[in-house]
Protein backbone atom coordinates (compact mmCIF):
# COMPACT_ATOMS: atom_id res chain seq x y z
CA UNK A 1 0.00 0.00 0.00
CA UNK A 2 1.62 3.28 -1.08
CA UNK A 3 1.67 6.66 0.67
CA UNK A 4 -0.96 8.18 -1.60
CA UNK A 5 -3.39 5.35 -0.91
CA UNK A 6 -2.86 5.53 2.87
CA UNK A 7 -3.37 9.30 2.94
CA UNK A 8 -6.57 9.17 0.89
CA UNK A 9 -7.98 6.34 3.03
CA UNK A 10 -7.10 7.95 6.34
CA UNK A 11 -8.22 11.43 5.33
CA UNK A 12 -11.55 10.13 4.11
CA UNK A 13 -12.00 8.42 7.48
CA UNK A 14 -11.10 11.34 9.71
CA UNK A 15 -13.37 13.68 7.75
CA UNK A 16 -16.44 11.56 8.49
CA UNK A 17 -18.90 13.33 10.80
CA UNK A 18 -18.83 12.27 14.44
CA UNK A 19 -21.67 10.44 16.14
CA UNK A 20 -23.97 12.24 18.58
CA UNK A 21 -21.69 11.27 21.46
CA UNK A 22 -18.61 12.48 19.56
CA UNK A 23 -17.24 9.11 18.57
CA UNK A 24 -16.31 7.70 15.18
CA UNK A 25 -19.15 6.32 13.09
CA UNK A 26 -19.27 2.65 12.14
CA UNK A 27 -19.69 3.46 8.45
CA UNK A 28 -18.74 6.31 6.13
CA UNK A 29 -21.54 8.41 4.69
CA UNK A 30 -21.37 6.29 1.53
CA UNK A 31 -21.58 3.04 3.47
CA UNK A 32 -17.99 1.80 3.81
CA UNK A 33 -16.98 0.15 7.08
CA UNK A 34 -14.70 2.44 9.06
CA UNK A 35 -13.60 -0.52 11.15
CA UNK A 36 -12.41 -2.24 7.98
CA UNK A 37 -10.59 0.89 6.81
CA UNK A 38 -8.91 1.25 10.22
CA UNK A 39 -7.91 -2.43 10.29
CA UNK A 40 -6.48 -2.16 6.79
CA UNK A 41 -4.07 0.70 7.52
CA UNK A 42 -3.55 1.04 11.27
CA UNK A 43 -1.99 -1.36 13.77
CA UNK A 44 -3.77 -2.01 17.06
CA UNK A 45 -1.77 -1.97 20.29
CA UNK A 46 -2.25 -3.58 23.70
CA UNK A 47 -4.72 -0.88 24.78
CA UNK A 48 -6.45 0.40 21.64
CA UNK A 49 -7.94 -1.21 18.55
CA UNK A 50 -7.14 0.14 15.10
CA UNK A 51 -10.60 1.72 15.10
CA UNK A 52 -9.97 3.47 18.42
CA UNK A 53 -6.62 4.81 17.27
CA UNK A 54 -8.13 6.21 14.09
CA UNK A 55 -10.97 7.64 16.15
CA UNK A 56 -8.52 9.89 18.04
CA UNK A 57 -7.71 11.62 14.74
CA UNK A 58 -11.33 11.72 13.63
CA UNK A 59 -12.33 13.48 16.86
CA UNK A 60 -9.33 15.76 16.74
CA UNK A 61 -10.12 16.88 13.18
CA UNK A 62 -13.62 17.91 14.09
CA UNK A 63 -12.77 19.45 17.46
CA UNK A 64 -10.17 21.69 15.88
CA UNK A 65 -12.20 23.04 12.96
CA UNK A 66 -15.44 23.35 14.94
CA UNK A 67 -13.62 25.31 17.64
CA UNK A 68 -12.00 27.56 15.03
CA UNK A 69 -15.31 28.30 13.31
CA UNK A 70 -17.02 28.93 16.61
CA UNK A 71 -14.32 31.42 17.63
CA UNK A 72 -14.70 33.26 14.33
CA UNK A 73 -18.51 33.47 14.43
CA UNK A 74 -19.65 34.05 18.02
CA UNK A 75 -22.27 36.49 16.72
CA UNK A 76 -23.90 33.84 14.54
CA UNK A 77 -23.86 31.48 17.51
CA UNK A 78 -25.62 34.13 19.60
CA UNK A 79 -28.26 34.60 16.88
CA UNK A 80 -29.10 30.96 16.14
CA UNK A 81 -28.38 29.47 19.58
CA UNK A 82 -25.76 26.92 20.63
CA UNK A 83 -27.43 23.74 19.44
CA UNK A 84 -28.35 25.05 16.01
CA UNK A 85 -24.90 26.55 15.61
CA UNK A 86 -23.23 23.19 16.33
CA UNK A 87 -25.42 21.50 13.71
CA UNK A 88 -24.93 24.08 11.00
CA UNK A 89 -21.18 24.34 11.65
CA UNK A 90 -20.73 20.58 11.26
CA UNK A 91 -22.86 20.53 8.10
CA UNK A 92 -21.01 23.52 6.62
CA UNK A 93 -17.56 22.06 7.32
CA UNK A 94 -18.59 18.75 5.82
CA UNK A 95 -19.65 20.50 2.60
CA UNK A 96 -16.91 23.14 2.66
CA UNK A 97 -13.77 21.72 4.29
CA UNK A 98 -10.72 23.94 4.61
CA UNK A 99 -8.93 24.62 1.35
CA UNK A 100 -6.39 26.96 2.83
CA UNK A 101 -3.21 26.48 4.83
CA UNK A 102 -4.61 28.88 7.40
CA UNK A 103 -7.70 28.45 9.58
CA UNK A 104 -8.33 32.17 9.07
CA UNK A 105 -10.16 31.35 5.85
CA UNK A 106 -12.35 28.60 7.29
CA UNK A 107 -15.51 30.74 7.21
CA UNK A 108 -14.95 32.31 3.80
CA UNK A 109 -17.77 30.32 2.18
CA UNK A 110 -20.19 30.38 5.11
CA UNK A 111 -22.49 33.16 3.88
CA UNK A 112 -22.95 31.53 0.48
CA UNK A 113 -23.47 28.12 2.04
CA UNK A 114 -26.12 29.47 4.45
CA UNK A 115 -27.97 31.14 1.60
CA UNK A 116 -28.12 27.73 -0.08
CA UNK A 117 -29.20 26.05 3.19
CA UNK A 118 -31.83 28.34 4.76
CA UNK A 119 -33.22 25.36 6.70
CA UNK A 120 -30.50 26.07 9.29
CA UNK A 121 -31.79 29.60 9.86
CA UNK A 122 -35.53 29.20 10.25
CA UNK A 123 -37.13 32.35 11.74
CA UNK A 124 -33.79 34.18 11.95
CA UNK A 125 -32.60 34.00 8.36
CA UNK A 126 -31.96 37.65 7.60
CA UNK A 127 -30.50 38.62 10.96
CA UNK A 128 -28.21 35.56 10.83
CA UNK A 129 -27.04 36.36 7.30
CA UNK A 130 -26.39 39.96 8.30
CA UNK A 131 -24.36 38.74 11.25
CA UNK A 132 -22.28 36.35 9.12
CA UNK A 133 -21.55 39.12 6.63
CA UNK A 134 -20.43 41.40 9.44
CA UNK A 135 -18.26 38.75 11.10
CA UNK A 136 -16.55 37.83 7.84
CA UNK A 137 -16.01 41.53 7.07
CA UNK A 138 -14.41 41.89 10.50
CA UNK A 139 -12.03 38.99 9.79
CA UNK A 140 -11.02 40.53 6.48
CA UNK A 141 -10.65 44.04 7.86
CA UNK A 142 -8.44 42.73 10.66
CA UNK A 143 -5.48 41.74 8.52
CA UNK A 144 -5.98 42.98 4.97
CA UNK A 145 -3.35 45.24 3.44
CA UNK A 146 -3.20 48.92 4.32
CA UNK A 147 -1.73 50.98 1.49
CA UNK A 148 -0.06 54.39 1.96
CA UNK A 149 -2.69 56.98 2.78
CA UNK A 150 -3.63 59.69 0.37
CA UNK A 151 -2.58 63.11 1.64
CA UNK A 152 -3.78 66.59 0.77
CA UNK A 153 -0.58 67.10 -1.22
CA UNK A 154 -1.52 64.18 -3.44
CA UNK A 155 -4.87 65.65 -4.49
CA UNK A 156 -3.68 67.81 -7.42
CA UNK A 157 -2.30 64.70 -9.11
CA UNK A 158 -5.78 63.21 -9.19
CA UNK A 159 -7.16 65.81 -11.62
CA UNK A 160 -10.42 67.78 -11.61
CA UNK A 161 -12.73 64.77 -11.20
CA UNK A 162 -10.65 62.43 -9.07
CA UNK A 163 -11.06 58.70 -8.60
CA UNK A 164 -10.43 57.87 -4.97
CA UNK A 165 -9.21 54.39 -4.13
CA UNK A 166 -10.45 52.87 -0.85
CA UNK A 167 -8.09 51.05 1.49
CA UNK A 168 -8.25 47.29 0.80
CA UNK A 169 -9.29 46.58 4.41
CA UNK A 170 -12.56 48.57 4.16
CA UNK A 171 -15.74 46.54 3.75
CA UNK A 172 -19.08 48.25 3.03
CA UNK A 173 -22.24 46.55 4.23
CA UNK A 174 -25.90 47.36 3.85
CA UNK A 175 -27.74 45.40 6.53
CA UNK A 176 -31.37 44.84 7.45
CA UNK A 177 -30.64 44.49 11.19
CA UNK A 178 -28.36 46.48 13.52
CA UNK A 179 -26.21 43.43 14.25
CA UNK A 180 -23.17 45.60 14.95
CA UNK A 181 -24.37 46.39 18.47
CA UNK A 182 -25.07 42.72 19.16
CA UNK A 183 -21.67 41.62 17.88
CA UNK A 184 -19.86 44.23 19.95
CA UNK A 185 -21.71 42.98 23.00
CA UNK A 186 -20.72 39.37 22.20
CA UNK A 187 -17.11 40.27 21.36
CA UNK A 188 -16.64 41.98 24.71
CA UNK A 189 -17.18 38.61 26.34
CA UNK A 190 -14.82 36.65 24.07
CA UNK A 191 -11.14 35.93 24.70
CA UNK A 192 -8.82 36.29 21.73
CA UNK A 193 -6.89 33.19 20.69
CA UNK A 194 -4.47 32.26 17.99
CA UNK A 195 -3.33 29.16 16.17
CA UNK A 196 -0.96 27.20 18.32
CA UNK A 197 1.65 24.59 17.60
CA UNK A 198 1.00 20.88 17.36
CA UNK A 199 -1.01 20.75 20.54
CA UNK A 200 -4.14 18.67 20.51
CA UNK A 201 -7.31 20.73 20.70
CA UNK A 202 -9.57 19.79 23.55
CA UNK A 203 -13.28 20.00 22.88
CA UNK A 204 -14.23 23.33 24.32
CA UNK A 205 -17.96 23.45 24.06
CA UNK A 206 -18.69 27.14 23.90
CA UNK A 207 -22.00 28.39 25.04
CA UNK A 208 -23.50 31.75 24.46
CA UNK A 209 -25.95 33.52 26.67
CA UNK A 210 -29.43 33.83 25.16
CA UNK A 211 -29.79 37.34 23.85
CA UNK A 212 -32.64 39.41 22.60
CA UNK A 213 -32.29 39.76 18.85
CA UNK A 214 -32.43 43.27 17.38
CA UNK A 215 -35.50 44.54 15.58
CA UNK A 216 -35.28 45.09 11.85
CA UNK A 217 -33.68 48.41 10.96
CA UNK A 218 -31.85 49.26 7.76
CA UNK A 219 -28.27 50.29 8.54
CA UNK A 220 -25.13 50.96 6.52
CA UNK A 221 -21.70 50.14 7.83
CA UNK A 222 -18.11 50.72 6.89
CA UNK A 223 -16.03 48.03 8.56
CA UNK A 224 -12.51 49.41 8.69
CA UNK A 225 -9.23 49.27 10.54
CA UNK A 226 -7.72 52.20 12.37
CA UNK A 227 -4.59 51.97 14.49
CA UNK A 228 -4.73 48.16 14.16
CA UNK A 229 -8.22 47.84 15.61
CA UNK A 230 -11.34 47.03 13.59
CA UNK A 231 -14.27 49.44 13.85
CA UNK A 232 -17.86 49.29 12.68
CA UNK A 233 -18.74 52.80 11.51
CA UNK A 234 -22.39 53.49 10.81
CA UNK A 235 -22.81 55.75 7.81
CA UNK A 236 -25.71 57.41 6.01
CA UNK A 237 -27.26 55.68 3.03
CA UNK A 238 -25.95 58.42 0.69
CA UNK A 239 -22.45 58.10 2.12
CA UNK A 240 -22.67 54.35 1.63
CA UNK A 241 -23.68 54.83 -2.00
CA UNK A 242 -20.81 57.22 -2.63
CA UNK A 243 -18.26 54.89 -1.03
CA UNK A 244 -19.56 51.89 -2.98
CA UNK A 245 -19.30 53.86 -6.22
CA UNK A 246 -15.73 54.97 -5.40
CA UNK A 247 -14.84 51.38 -4.52
CA UNK A 248 -16.20 50.32 -7.90
CA UNK A 249 -13.95 52.78 -9.73
CA UNK A 250 -16.33 55.67 -10.33
CA UNK A 251 -15.06 59.26 -10.29
CA UNK A 252 -15.99 61.66 -7.51
CA UNK A 253 -18.73 63.36 -9.53
CA UNK A 254 -20.15 60.03 -10.68
CA UNK A 255 -20.14 58.76 -7.11
CA UNK A 256 -21.92 61.81 -5.75
CA UNK A 257 -24.47 61.64 -8.56
CA UNK A 258 -25.13 57.98 -7.75
CA UNK A 259 -26.60 58.90 -4.36
CA UNK A 260 -30.28 59.74 -3.99
CA UNK A 261 -30.46 63.36 -2.79
CA UNK A 262 -34.19 63.85 -3.39
CA UNK A 263 -35.86 65.87 -0.69
CA UNK A 264 -32.59 67.34 0.54
CA UNK A 265 -31.58 70.95 -0.06
CA UNK A 266 -28.46 71.16 -2.18
CA UNK A 267 -26.65 73.18 0.52
CA UNK A 268 -27.24 70.47 3.13
CA UNK A 269 -26.13 67.73 0.76
CA UNK A 270 -23.01 69.63 -0.16
CA UNK A 271 -22.15 70.22 3.49
CA UNK A 272 -22.67 66.55 4.28
CA UNK A 273 -20.42 65.40 1.45
CA UNK A 274 -17.67 67.76 2.56
CA UNK A 275 -17.97 66.58 6.15
CA UNK A 276 -17.89 62.92 5.13
CA UNK A 277 -14.83 63.34 2.95
CA UNK A 278 -13.03 65.17 5.75
CA UNK A 279 -13.81 62.29 8.12
CA UNK A 280 -12.88 59.57 5.64
CA UNK A 281 -9.60 61.32 4.87
CA UNK A 282 -8.79 61.73 8.55
CA UNK A 283 -9.43 58.02 9.06
CA UNK A 284 -7.08 57.20 6.18
CA UNK A 285 -9.77 55.48 4.11
CA UNK A 286 -8.28 56.66 0.80
CA UNK A 287 -5.00 55.33 -0.46
CA UNK A 288 -2.48 56.15 -3.15
CA UNK A 289 -3.81 55.49 -6.63
CA UNK A 290 -1.77 54.71 -9.73
CA UNK A 291 -2.16 58.36 -10.74
CA UNK A 292 -0.42 59.51 -7.55
CA UNK A 293 2.23 56.82 -7.76
CA UNK A 294 3.01 57.70 -11.40
CA UNK A 295 3.22 61.37 -10.54
Amino acid at each position, binding site marked *: MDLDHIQHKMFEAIRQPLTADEGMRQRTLDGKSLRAIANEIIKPNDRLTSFERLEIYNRQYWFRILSALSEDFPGLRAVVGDRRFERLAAAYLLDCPSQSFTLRNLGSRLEGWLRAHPEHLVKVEQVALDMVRLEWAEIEAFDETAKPQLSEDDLPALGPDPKFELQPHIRLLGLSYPVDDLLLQVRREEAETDIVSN*AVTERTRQTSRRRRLPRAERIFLAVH*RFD*NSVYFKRIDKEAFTILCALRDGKSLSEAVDAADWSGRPIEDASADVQQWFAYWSAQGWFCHTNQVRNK
Partner: protein
Amino acid sequence: MPANRFNGFTEYGVGIGLRIPHYNHILSKKPTVDWFEIISENFMSDGGRPLHVLDQILEQYRVVQHGVSMYFGSVEPLNREHLKRLKALVRRTGTPWLSDHLCWGSVDGTYSHDLLPMPYTFEAAAKTADKIRQARDFLEVPVVVENVSSYAEFHVSEMTEWQFLTEVVERADCGILLDVNNIYVSSRNHNFDPLEYVNGVPHERVAQIHIAGHSKFEKYILDTHDHPVIDPVWSLYARAIELIGPTATLLEWDDRIPSFDEVHDEALKANRYVAGKVSV
Protein backbone atom coordinates in the same frame (compact mmCIF):
# COMPACT_ATOMS: atom_id res chain seq x y z
CA MET B 1 27.74 21.24 18.26
CA PRO B 2 25.02 23.71 19.39
CA ALA B 3 25.78 26.19 16.63
CA ASN B 4 25.57 24.33 13.36
CA ARG B 5 24.61 24.85 9.74
CA PHE B 6 21.06 23.74 10.50
CA ASN B 7 20.38 26.59 12.92
CA GLY B 8 22.35 29.20 11.02
CA PHE B 9 25.34 28.83 13.37
CA THR B 10 23.48 30.50 16.21
CA GLU B 11 23.47 29.89 19.97
CA TYR B 12 20.04 31.04 21.03
CA GLY B 13 19.57 29.75 24.58
CA VAL B 14 16.09 29.21 26.04
CA GLY B 15 13.03 30.78 24.47
CA ILE B 16 9.25 30.62 24.70
CA GLY B 17 6.42 30.74 22.21
CA LEU B 18 4.97 34.18 21.46
CA ARG B 19 1.30 33.98 22.42
CA ILE B 20 -1.51 36.58 22.37
CA PRO B 21 -2.23 36.57 26.14
CA HIS B 22 1.36 37.71 26.73
CA TYR B 23 1.52 40.49 24.12
CA ASN B 24 0.74 43.34 26.51
CA HIS B 25 3.18 42.11 29.15
CA ILE B 26 6.01 41.68 26.64
CA LEU B 27 5.47 45.01 24.89
CA SER B 28 5.03 47.01 28.08
CA LYS B 29 7.52 45.32 30.45
CA LYS B 30 10.07 44.23 27.85
CA PRO B 31 11.23 41.23 29.89
CA THR B 32 14.59 39.65 29.13
CA VAL B 33 13.99 36.60 26.96
CA ASP B 34 16.62 34.82 24.85
CA TRP B 35 14.26 34.45 21.90
CA PHE B 36 10.66 33.94 20.85
CA GLU B 37 9.27 31.28 18.58
CA ILE B 38 6.35 32.42 16.43
CA ILE B 39 3.83 30.26 14.62
CA SER B 40 4.44 31.42 11.05
CA GLU B 41 0.81 30.99 10.00
CA ASN B 42 -0.31 33.56 12.59
CA PHE B 43 1.73 36.24 10.85
CA MET B 44 1.32 35.40 7.17
CA SER B 45 -1.27 38.13 6.69
CA ASP B 46 -1.05 41.29 4.61
CA GLY B 47 -1.33 43.78 7.46
CA GLY B 48 -3.00 44.72 10.70
CA ARG B 49 -2.26 43.97 14.30
CA PRO B 50 -0.38 40.67 13.89
CA LEU B 51 2.35 42.23 11.78
CA HIS B 52 2.35 45.41 13.86
CA VAL B 53 2.98 43.39 17.03
CA LEU B 54 5.58 41.27 15.28
CA ASP B 55 7.49 44.34 14.14
CA GLN B 56 7.55 45.66 17.70
CA ILE B 57 8.79 42.30 18.96
CA LEU B 58 11.48 42.21 16.27
CA GLU B 59 12.81 45.56 17.47
CA GLN B 60 13.63 44.01 20.83
CA TYR B 61 13.97 40.26 20.42
CA ARG B 62 15.29 37.44 18.28
CA VAL B 63 12.51 35.48 16.60
CA VAL B 64 12.46 32.01 15.07
CA GLN B 65 9.66 30.80 12.82
CA HIS B 66 7.85 27.56 13.45
CA GLY B 67 5.19 26.36 11.00
CA VAL B 68 2.22 24.06 11.35
CA SER B 69 0.92 23.54 7.84
CA MET B 70 3.73 22.93 5.36
CA TYR B 71 2.93 19.20 5.46
CA PHE B 72 6.19 17.93 4.00
CA GLY B 73 4.80 14.40 4.21
CA SER B 74 1.66 15.01 2.13
CA VAL B 75 1.83 13.44 -1.29
CA GLU B 76 0.48 16.56 -3.00
CA PRO B 77 2.93 19.29 -4.07
CA LEU B 78 3.89 22.19 -1.80
CA ASN B 79 1.43 25.07 -1.85
CA ARG B 80 3.15 27.87 -3.82
CA GLU B 81 1.02 30.63 -2.28
CA HIS B 82 1.93 29.35 1.17
CA LEU B 83 5.63 29.31 0.26
CA LYS B 84 5.52 32.83 -1.14
CA ARG B 85 3.93 34.21 1.99
CA LEU B 86 6.33 32.25 4.14
CA LYS B 87 9.29 33.66 2.27
CA ALA B 88 8.02 37.21 2.77
CA LEU B 89 7.79 36.49 6.49
CA VAL B 90 11.28 34.96 6.54
CA ARG B 91 12.61 38.19 5.09
CA ARG B 92 10.73 40.21 7.69
CA THR B 93 11.84 38.22 10.72
CA GLY B 94 15.35 37.27 9.63
CA THR B 95 14.77 33.88 11.21
CA PRO B 96 18.07 31.97 11.19
CA TRP B 97 16.24 28.71 10.61
CA LEU B 98 12.66 27.67 9.98
CA SER B 99 10.94 24.61 11.37
CA ASP B 100 7.84 22.60 10.52
CA HIS B 101 6.67 19.10 11.26
CA LEU B 102 7.53 15.68 9.91
CA CYS B 103 3.93 14.82 9.12
CA TRP B 104 1.23 15.07 6.51
CA GLY B 105 -2.09 16.90 6.74
CA SER B 106 -3.63 17.68 3.36
CA VAL B 107 -5.06 15.67 0.49
CA ASP B 108 -6.06 17.05 -2.92
CA GLY B 109 -6.00 20.63 -1.63
CA THR B 110 -8.13 19.97 1.44
CA TYR B 111 -6.49 20.69 4.79
CA SER B 112 -6.93 18.78 8.03
CA HIS B 113 -5.14 21.39 10.18
CA ASP B 114 -3.77 18.45 12.11
CA LEU B 115 -0.31 16.86 12.19
CA LEU B 116 -1.02 13.40 10.89
CA PRO B 117 1.54 10.62 11.41
CA MET B 118 3.70 9.23 8.64
CA PRO B 119 3.96 5.59 7.68
CA TYR B 120 7.66 4.84 8.20
CA THR B 121 8.49 3.59 4.70
CA PHE B 122 11.37 4.30 2.34
CA GLU B 123 8.89 5.61 -0.23
CA ALA B 124 7.50 8.12 2.29
CA ALA B 125 11.00 9.17 3.37
CA ALA B 126 12.07 9.83 -0.22
CA LYS B 127 8.95 11.85 -1.09
CA THR B 128 9.12 13.85 2.13
CA ALA B 129 12.81 14.62 1.77
CA ASP B 130 12.21 15.83 -1.78
CA LYS B 131 9.62 18.34 -0.57
CA ILE B 132 11.86 19.56 2.25
CA ARG B 133 14.61 20.23 -0.28
CA GLN B 134 12.17 22.12 -2.52
CA ALA B 135 11.02 24.27 0.39
CA ARG B 136 14.55 25.03 1.52
CA ASP B 137 15.65 25.95 -2.00
CA PHE B 138 12.72 28.34 -2.37
CA LEU B 139 12.89 29.86 1.11
CA GLU B 140 16.69 30.20 1.16
CA VAL B 141 16.89 29.49 4.88
CA PRO B 142 17.82 26.29 6.76
CA VAL B 143 14.74 24.11 7.22
CA VAL B 144 14.49 21.76 10.19
CA VAL B 145 11.80 19.15 10.81
CA GLU B 146 10.13 18.27 14.09
CA ASN B 147 9.07 14.81 15.22
CA VAL B 148 5.34 14.84 16.10
CA SER B 149 3.35 13.12 18.83
CA SER B 150 1.36 10.29 17.36
CA TYR B 151 -1.53 8.07 18.32
CA ALA B 152 -1.45 5.54 15.49
CA GLU B 153 1.08 3.31 13.72
CA PHE B 154 0.77 1.86 10.23
CA HIS B 155 0.99 -1.77 9.14
CA VAL B 156 3.23 -0.79 6.24
CA SER B 157 5.98 0.79 8.37
CA GLU B 158 9.41 -0.61 7.58
CA MET B 159 11.44 1.04 10.35
CA THR B 160 11.19 2.78 13.72
CA GLU B 161 10.20 6.43 13.96
CA TRP B 162 13.73 7.55 14.76
CA GLN B 163 15.12 5.55 11.85
CA PHE B 164 12.53 7.22 9.63
CA LEU B 165 13.46 10.67 10.95
CA THR B 166 17.11 9.90 10.26
CA GLU B 167 16.33 8.61 6.77
CA VAL B 168 14.39 11.79 5.93
CA VAL B 169 16.85 14.34 7.29
CA GLU B 170 19.84 12.63 5.69
CA ARG B 171 18.11 12.39 2.31
CA ALA B 172 17.04 16.05 2.59
CA ASP B 173 20.28 17.11 4.24
CA CYS B 174 18.30 19.15 6.74
CA GLY B 175 18.23 19.66 10.49
CA ILE B 176 16.05 18.31 13.28
CA LEU B 177 13.83 20.05 15.78
CA LEU B 178 13.89 17.37 18.45
CA ASP B 179 10.71 17.52 20.53
CA VAL B 180 11.49 15.45 23.62
CA ASN B 181 7.92 15.74 24.90
CA ASN B 182 6.64 14.32 21.62
CA ILE B 183 9.14 11.47 21.94
CA TYR B 184 7.83 10.75 25.43
CA VAL B 185 4.17 10.93 24.35
CA SER B 186 4.73 8.62 21.37
CA SER B 187 6.84 6.21 23.42
CA ARG B 188 3.96 5.75 25.84
CA ASN B 189 1.41 5.42 23.05
CA HIS B 190 3.51 2.94 21.07
CA ASN B 191 5.48 1.11 23.76
CA PHE B 192 9.06 1.97 22.86
CA ASP B 193 11.99 3.17 24.94
CA PRO B 194 12.26 6.97 24.54
CA LEU B 195 15.95 6.89 25.40
CA GLU B 196 16.57 4.62 22.44
CA TYR B 197 14.95 7.34 20.28
CA VAL B 198 17.08 10.14 21.75
CA ASN B 199 20.21 8.01 21.43
CA GLY B 200 19.34 6.99 17.87
CA VAL B 201 18.92 10.28 16.01
CA PRO B 202 21.84 12.00 14.22
CA HIS B 203 22.82 14.44 16.96
CA GLU B 204 24.91 16.62 14.71
CA ARG B 205 21.71 17.59 12.85
CA VAL B 206 19.74 18.80 15.87
CA ALA B 207 19.16 22.53 15.48
CA GLN B 208 16.61 23.06 18.23
CA ILE B 209 14.79 21.24 21.03
CA HIS B 210 11.14 21.54 22.11
CA ILE B 211 9.91 20.81 25.62
CA ALA B 212 6.25 20.85 26.70
CA GLY B 213 3.61 19.34 28.95
CA HIS B 214 0.90 16.88 27.99
CA SER B 215 -2.27 15.19 29.28
CA LYS B 216 -2.57 11.59 30.37
CA PHE B 217 -5.74 9.64 29.64
CA GLU B 218 -6.64 6.10 30.58
CA LYS B 219 -5.36 4.42 27.43
CA TYR B 220 -3.13 7.01 25.80
CA ILE B 221 -1.36 10.32 26.24
CA LEU B 222 -2.34 13.46 24.34
CA ASP B 223 0.07 16.22 23.43
CA THR B 224 -1.90 19.16 24.82
CA HIS B 225 0.81 21.72 25.74
CA ASP B 226 -1.23 22.80 28.73
CA HIS B 227 0.86 21.64 31.67
CA PRO B 228 4.36 22.08 33.07
CA VAL B 229 7.03 19.72 31.78
CA ILE B 230 7.07 16.44 33.72
CA ASP B 231 10.22 14.89 35.18
CA PRO B 232 10.56 12.02 32.66
CA VAL B 233 10.53 14.61 29.86
CA TRP B 234 13.18 16.66 31.67
CA SER B 235 15.25 13.48 31.92
CA LEU B 236 14.99 12.99 28.16
CA TYR B 237 15.96 16.62 27.72
CA ALA B 238 19.00 16.14 29.95
CA ARG B 239 20.07 13.12 27.93
CA ALA B 240 19.59 15.02 24.68
CA ILE B 241 21.73 17.91 25.94
CA GLU B 242 24.35 15.44 27.08
CA LEU B 243 24.53 13.96 23.58
CA ILE B 244 24.02 17.09 21.51
CA GLY B 245 25.43 19.89 23.64
CA PRO B 246 23.61 23.05 24.72
CA THR B 247 21.01 23.64 22.03
CA ALA B 248 18.39 26.32 21.37
CA THR B 249 15.46 25.20 23.50
CA LEU B 250 11.84 26.27 23.40
CA LEU B 251 9.01 25.65 25.84
CA GLU B 252 5.60 25.24 24.19
CA TRP B 253 2.58 26.22 26.29
CA ASP B 254 -0.47 26.67 24.09
CA ASP B 255 -3.60 26.05 26.11
CA ARG B 256 -4.71 27.26 29.55
CA ILE B 257 -1.77 29.63 29.23
CA PRO B 258 -0.61 30.96 32.60
CA SER B 259 1.13 34.28 33.20
CA PHE B 260 4.17 35.21 31.18
CA ASP B 261 6.42 34.82 34.25
CA GLU B 262 5.11 31.33 34.98
CA VAL B 263 5.73 30.18 31.42
CA HIS B 264 9.16 31.80 31.28
CA ASP B 265 10.19 30.35 34.66
CA GLU B 266 9.20 26.89 33.48
CA ALA B 267 11.27 27.33 30.32
CA LEU B 268 14.30 28.57 32.25
CA LYS B 269 14.42 25.31 34.20
CA ALA B 270 16.12 24.01 31.05
CA ASN B 271 19.20 25.99 32.01
CA ARG B 272 19.75 23.69 35.01
CA TYR B 273 20.26 20.81 32.61
CA VAL B 274 22.35 22.83 30.20
CA ALA B 275 24.62 23.87 33.08
CA GLY B 276 24.82 20.26 34.20
CA LYS B 277 23.40 21.06 37.63
CA VAL B 278 20.84 18.28 37.39
CA SER B 279 21.92 14.81 36.41
CA VAL B 280 19.89 12.35 34.32
